[in-house]
């Protein structure tokens, strides 16, 4: 280890120390929500094949459990995990410590109080019934203020960066940090504060939902992939010069793709046509990103076997490609008219939230947390259980929702099939989904136990101190040395 390297290590250790508690708090809350949301999701899924399950009480009726589960997963797990990961990565890539982290506790507190109140509001009957905006109006301001703190911290950390270059992961993080509050505030104003009329409401809702998935969760997952691949493999991103093109093209077209959700709806046809065209154009950046990421991974089977982070990131990349493919397919009128409103549309969003985003966050956590706490993951069996259940769950649910949804669509399209028969035929697939969700939930419990052993001040006393291999030095050709792989 020469002196520049040890300097770099010392600097990283200082950054990690400054980010330790905010990251642990955000990630810990995220995990609690992941389990809670997963349990609610499982209940909702069971209710579809066993309708009497928990139907006696208004608080647990299916129509309330579904949005409560979705909100817990998106705002509880998804946003908290993204905050933890995003703040840490922004500090690392900007080569600067996370200053005044105490304020981030305030943000974490308010955010989680807001989400809790919102979900209780949904269960208590104050849902607005707008997709992903179901939380009652009284939590909007709490969430926005809490987010403002996090967003300002991310952007400030970026603007006091000590690096020459801005790396791909930073574009995605920076963009997402700006897009979310705008999307959320505009949707709140146009739907709840000063509602627009008629079918403009579903349009605003579709624009928001598509933006949240495409301009928040996907950028977070890609930021992780662009960072961890070169970091762990010690080689730069393949064809990195294409990455800026992919970034601008991806986010620029995604921003217009929201209308594709309204195909066949009573809105002017140009809206869904524009959305469909945007989804077609997305093929280019998805291919470029695949070249970037899979090209970097090509031939690195041994490294994949060694690194749990890489394996999770690989699932995330495949999930992203699959989700983009499904989005593309759902813009084709012939396909959309069959599978619209079925389990396949549910699969589209699930692929982004779980297969793309959540797996990337798991991968990131396995890398980040030992470095922040200085401790090893205590149980490698639990790590394996988590990865195994995530991989199995992703396969089960993708197959189940795709095939079950296609069967559902085929039957719906045939007017001679009575509706009751469709329900009967789907019972198997609903049960199949419950099994898939249960598999995922088991993995999440395994992860939570390991997390407690590494992060909780009391339970982690007996956990071994981590020994890190020096990360492989980036083999940058001189010309690329300025590309800013921090």
């Amino acid at each position, binding site marked *: 280890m020469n002196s520049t390297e040890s300097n770099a290590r010392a600097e990283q250790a200082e950054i990690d120390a400054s980010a330790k508690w905010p990251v642990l708090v955000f990630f810990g809350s995220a995990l609690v929500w992941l389990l809670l949301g997963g349990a609610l999701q499982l209940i909702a899924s069971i209710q*579809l094949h066993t309708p009497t399950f928990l139907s006696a009480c208004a608080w647990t009726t299916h*129509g309330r459990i579904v949005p409560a589960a979705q909100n817990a997963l998106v705002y509880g797990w998804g946003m908290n995990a993204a905050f933890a990961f995003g703040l840490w990565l922004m500090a690392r890539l900007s080569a600067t410590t996370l200053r005044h982290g105490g304020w981030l506790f305030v943000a974490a507190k308010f955010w989680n109080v807001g989400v809790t109140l919102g979900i209780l509001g949904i269960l208590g009957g104050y849902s607005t019934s707008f997709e992903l905006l179901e939380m009652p109006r009284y939590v909007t301001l709490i969430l926005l203020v809490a987010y403002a703190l996090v967003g300002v911290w991310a952007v400030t950390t970026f603007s006091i960066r000590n690096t020459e270059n801005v790396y791909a992961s930073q574009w995605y993080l920076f963009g997402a940090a700006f897009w979310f509050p705008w999307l959320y505030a505009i949707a709140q104003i146009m739907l709840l504060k000063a509602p627009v009329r008629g079918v403009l*409401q579903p349009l605003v809702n579709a624009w928001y939902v598509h933006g949240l998935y495409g301009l928040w969760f996907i950028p977070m997952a890609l930021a992780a992939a662009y960072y961890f691949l070169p970091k762990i493999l010690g080689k730069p991103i393949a064809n990195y010069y294409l990455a800026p093109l992919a970034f601008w093209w991806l*986010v620029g077209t995604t921003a217009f793709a929201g209308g594709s959700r309204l195909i*066949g709806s009573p809105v002017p046809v140009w809206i869904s046509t524009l959305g469909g065209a945007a989804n077609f154009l997305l093929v280019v950046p998805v291919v470029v990103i695949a070249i970037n990421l899979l090209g970097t991974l090509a031939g690195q089977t041994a490294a994949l076997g060694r690194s749990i982070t890489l394996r999770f990131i690989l699932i995330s990349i495949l999930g992203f490609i699959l989700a983009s493919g499904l989005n593309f397919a759902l813009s084709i009128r012939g396909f959309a008219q069959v599978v619209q409103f079925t389990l396949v549309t549910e699969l589209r969003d699930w692929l982004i939230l779980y297969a793309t985003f959540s797996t990337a966050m798991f991968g990131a956590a396995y890398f980040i947390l030992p470095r922040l706490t200085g401790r090893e993951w205590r149980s490698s069996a639990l790590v394996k259980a988590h990865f195994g259940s995530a991989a199995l769950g992703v396969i089960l649910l993708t197959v189940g929702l795709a095939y079950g949804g296609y069967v559902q669509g085929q039957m719906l399209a045939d007017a001679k099939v009575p509706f*009751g028969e469709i*329900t009967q035929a789907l019972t198997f697939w609903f049960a199949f989904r419950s099994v898939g969700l249960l598999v995922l939930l088991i993995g999440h419990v395994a992860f939570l136990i390991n997390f407690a052993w590494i992060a909780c001040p009391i339970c982690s006393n007996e956990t071994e101190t981590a020994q890190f291999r020096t990360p492989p030095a980036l083999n940058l050709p001189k010309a690329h040395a300025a590309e800013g792989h921090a």
Partner: protein
Amino acid sequence: MKNGLALFLGVFAILGLSWAGLLLSAHRQLGSLSQFKDPVEETLYPQPLSGLANQGRLVYQDLGCVSCHTQQVRHEGFGSDIERKWGQRASYARDYIRESSVLIGQSRIGPDLRNAGSTELHSYADADYFYSLLYAPQSVAPGTNMPSYAFLFETHALAGRQPSYGAIKLTGRYAPAAGYEIVPTARARALVAYLQSLKDTYDYPTERNLNAPAETAKEGGH
């Protein structure tokens, strides 16, 4: 990429353009859509909900019915909505302008409800049907996976009195024990009023051609 300002401006422009291009231009096109006055009937369509039905809309919203039910009829040739008798015609943007929250939905685990209250399409869909459906879904729709909304009803002991005016009629295994009656609460009555109000009966002459399938070019024609 080195320039933080360029990044910021690009990020800002993308969202601004998408907002203006998608939401603002749709608003320009549809925001001032007005009711249509039928020249013969001299009535404005679409008509507003009754007060009770409007309360029922809030119950519909609060119970999350939108999780499983859509409220949009797709046009002939795009799915089987019309053949399934979910509507006599496709839904138009104008149908929704009087609704304070428009829940067109995105899942059809249950059937579409845009015309659930239309007795022309569903001759059985009277108030009794909806009460039975909500209290014990299996009693009128065997095999359905709709949950029971029994919590919207109260069970009263008759104690020798005549059954109440609003008591719901249930037979067989779903009927209450002898000497008891099932009475809908105010919320159930509002919800049923809302469901019965769901029907787009009026066909706007201005919109009639909008959703017709495009004419196929005749052979040899231009």
